């Protein structure tokens, strides 16, 4: 009886300290040793060939097993890599009518609504003009500047901005230790034109001597309306991600 309650108390204490330290998932063993490097670099397959919903949906979509079978073919057809042990694992799943239980590496908390489509389709002109200019891809490939540069390039590069250089990965890993933490997301959201101004939009003394003219100027700074004539989405509102 008493033991039962020692647990939650110690839990709270441990959570308290755990919460202060961050430890992200870096890599985990997958049911099939799938190599992103092999498929993307050597075979030249684009990200969205398999992750086909990324530009249309909130989720990028794990490729259905039929996509794998489409190239590799079932055992009897002897298509691509007929003898590979790992590919045969996939074929076994297929013939058993079972989905592959991939382990989720890039996990976004349940209280965040992350639309892949809005990021894939985002207009990189909304980024600050100098964003990504100082990228030193040799020494600091995962620096903010490099991520922005990748994002600006678009295409598959844009996926790599957040997921790391998946094209060089034999095993999929989470590169950024603080992946999908709020600060990690905000880093880039603040690189949008007007975002920093918007973050401090009220001006410090807004209430006290609240100058209308000043705020008009601010509104111009934060780029409320884009060149196409409609209002730019506010990327700093809490409701952007949390609802």
């Amino acid at each position, binding site marked *: 009886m008493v033991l039962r309650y020692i647990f939650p108390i110690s839990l709270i204490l441990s959570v308290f300290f755990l919460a202060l330290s961050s430890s992200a998932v870096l890599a985990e063993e997958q049911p099939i040793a799938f190599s992103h490097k092999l498929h993307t670099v050597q075979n030249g397959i684009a990200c969205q060939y398999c992750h086909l919903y990324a530009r249309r949906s909130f989720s990028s979509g794990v490729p259905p097993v039929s996509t794998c079978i489409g190239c590799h073919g079932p055992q009897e057809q002897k298509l691509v890599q007929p003898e590979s042990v790992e590919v045969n694992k996939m074929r076994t799943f297929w013939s058993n009518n079972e989905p592959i239980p991939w382990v989720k590496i890039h996990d976004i908390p349940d209280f965040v609504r992350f639309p892949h489509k809005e990021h894939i389709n985002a207009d990189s002109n909304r980024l600050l003009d100098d964003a990504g200019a100082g990228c030193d891809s040799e020494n600091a490939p995962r620096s903010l500047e490099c991520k922005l540069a990748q994002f600006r390039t678009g295409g598959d590069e844009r996926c790599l901005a957040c997921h790391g250089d998946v094209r060089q990965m034999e095993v999929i890993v989470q590169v950024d230790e603080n992946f999908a933490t709020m600060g990690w997301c905000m880093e880039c959201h603040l690189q949008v034109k007007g975002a920093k101004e918007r973050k401090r939009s009220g*001006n410090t003394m807004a209430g006290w001597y609240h100058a209308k003219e000043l705020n008009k100027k601010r509104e111009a700074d*934060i780029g409320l309306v884009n060149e196409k004539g409609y209002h730019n989405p506010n990327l700093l509102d809490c409701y952007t991600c949390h*609802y």
Partner: protein
Amino acid sequence: MKKGLSRRNLFKYMGVGGATAVVAGCEKSSEKLIPMLIPPTDYEYTPHTAYKYMTTCRECDSACGMMVTTREHRAQKAEGNPNHPVNQGALCARGQASLQTLYNPNRHAHPLADGKQIPWEEGMQQFSAIIKAASGAIAYLGKPASGSEGDFVDEWLQAAGGGQRFKFNLLTQKSQIEANKIAFDHANVPEYAFEKAGVVFNFSTDFLENWGNPVENARRFTDMHVYKNGRKNKFIHISPQVSLTGAKADRWIVINPGTEGLVALAIASVIQKENGTYKFLKKYLQAYSPEKVAEATGVSAETLSELAIDAMEHGPLLALGGGNVSATDQSVETLVGVNILNAVSGALNKTVLFSDQTTPESSTHQDLTQLISDLNAGKIKLLIVDDSNPVYALPPSMGFLQALKKTFVVSLASQKSETTHTANLVLPALTAYESWGDAFPRNGVRSIQQPVMSTVNMFDARAREDILLSVAQNVNKKAFSENSSYLDYLQNIWQKIQRKVGDKRKFDSFWISVLENGGIFEKPKFVRASLNRRVASVKLNDPGMASSDGLTLFPTTSLLLGDGSGANKPWLQEVPDPMSQIVWDSWMEINPDTAQKLGINDRAIVEISTPYGSVQATAYYHFGIHRNAIAIPMGQGHQHSGDVADGFGINVMKLLPDQMDKAGSLVFVGAKAKLKLINEKSYTVNTDGNARQLGRDISAATTVEELNNPEKHSSGHNRPVEFYPDRSETAGYYKPYRWGMTIDLDRCNGCSACVVACYAENNLPVVGKVRTAIGREMSWIRMERYIEGYGDDFETRFSPMLCQHCGNAGCETVCPVYATYHNPEGLNAMVYNRCVGTRYCSNNCAYKVRRFNWFNYEFPAPLDQQLNTTITTREVGVMEKCTFCVQRIKDAKYDAKNLGRDLEDGEVVTACQQTCPTKAITFGNLMDPESKVAKNALRDNPAKRDRQYEVLAELNYKPAVTYLKKVNTREVDGHDSDNHGSHEQEQAHS
């Protein structure tokens, strides 16, 4: 009394569930990514994206068109089909809750033989064998089907060797059909054109709840009754009981039980005397002159004449009759009386329109009595029952349950019920969401029902018609030789329909257009009807129920539970009945005067006994009931309908005699009840803290007179001079949107569809009776009910209360961690994951609309499949509240952005607004002067505001929700004198 639901046991490790989730977040994630094996190729599929399918709601026989939103192939939200002429996009509370028919944990999961699980093959074999053995001595007891299903069953019975189909419906319209036949030679139910009427007399019907199609009735009635262009048409409720429908009335005329017909004839006699039409009725009506019936009806002759003058002056009149409260043994005569009134006042063919299609007939009580005696005599070897539940619904005095034991019962039901509990063989059927079907609810409306998703994986069920079809093919090789499935059969029928409507396309393209559209809808064709001379021979007597001993018992229908089929749906149990605000329970409405005479307090437990049985229920003081009567709603008191329904409340049918009227319908009113006090206190849970608003004008009303005399009406609270600048002057704020809402209380009738819609849209957990008792219900929008005045002259007001998204919200400033703040679009944003749970915001919310997650609430499988995947489902310890359906705003904005424009008015529709049958709610951008909501709210134009007000405006919270006052045609007596402080309130306003 059973406390709550056993599976939501209080002592489960719910708290730890929350805590460990946090730990898991910091440590290793073991979440799996499960891909599809083969993605759907036959149609477009994108995860997290809403796909909408048109189908038909089958919760009652009204057959409203329904548009079901599915995501990831799971039905997540039901909405009305906007193309459908009957409901025009709206749904009632029961329609909204139809999702819980689909995902009900209490559905049959397997075929059962004598309560034991068997494989399907065995079940089908047993079924075939018994059909063969019965050799034609078969009875099929099903719901009345307006669509092809009825014909199919008839055909099937023939193929199976013969038998009879019984169409069971407790709330039958048989008496009305009979009365129409007598009066107008039209044996069907007319269409009531409320919108054309100038005044409506309602003789005890509950047309906003269960009589006819409540969604359509509500819409058309509101068109007639709403305040428009400085005037408002009258609606007078003439009945011994005030239901939700009666609560909307401008005036309640208390009549003695069973005297609706006499009142109608008395009014008719005055009108006839004045306008001199229908001369053949002159003598007949003289016998029912106001002076002569005054004593029997309990209504003074002056009042009756007044009503007649009202009808003549403000006509055309629409008189409605029917419903449970007037279902005495004279109900046919009563309805003939109402028909005479309609004819005499000239309403016939103006507001009462007959079409040539016959209404789907249900079997009469007489037929059922015959069935029972056949069963008892052993004449029927096999009884097949579908989702209807006669064991529960019929009065036990009929002996149906005993008769069932004498035959083999096969149940083809999806839900557990008292009837399936007695069945020898249960073959679980699919719900309307998973199977094909159609419905032809009235002339010109053909509505299709299509499966919107594959079957719920927990339940091994098959479509009812497909079970029948394959069994028939087992038994009889020739049966249905052209049809491999019911879909084939259905398509054949629709080919005929295609020919009938003259569509020249290929059937495939026709069929696709039907599925896209939800059916084929044509303008109704009406035929002229005239009053038959025969009516003069119909005699109406004084039933004398008011004067005799005992209290007349009214078994009233329940808005949410219907005839009891809603009781196994958690939402419908959890949402309070709008009139009594009671949840998870039955109650007995009693007039306070009578109750005090009998020494019965409010909420005392009373034993109600009639010669046919007795039950114990909670007394509920209700001004709106005759002093010599009591009313008990139907729908509760289940025993074998699964844990959501079982053990809550009582079944009023136990008190009813086995008696029928001239049309052969069951007599509901006639039993005399005796009351005995059992206990002073009962464990009855109601969600309202107080029935009175104490002059606080939360649910405000005005009068037509006041609105037409601008100097008399105060233009509401004057905004004080602001110390701080308006938020719109903060950079980036309200550009271009500031979301706002208006709620027209003159349109709102308290039907609570919005409440259920919110439960469905926003993943609100159901907490059960015990937790509701201490205020832990989670509804984001609640239907507040306030009572004004005393005695017969009382007024009921409804106002939906939801988060007001205040500009100066009290909740925001007190949050220590910015978990709630004012967002640039004027929403009061609630960030769940930032919330620590101090609950100060809830304390400081004047509207009390914030809800706290006291536990990690469970959604027992498969109800979890209904959860809306576009929003966060909240965990223990966080506050939540109405978000103005921010997920819908976001989705609409993403779509608009792809189109390269800003949102237009009407593109964002909140769940509550969407389902409102009377369009009481408008939502939109207050910054756009052309938007509907801005025009309704008139925020920038105080001079033009007449009905607009903000609740508790004196607190200066600046809510974004503007209410429009209810408009009364007169002042309710005692409204201002019944409380302290109201005087000061008035002063503060002026």
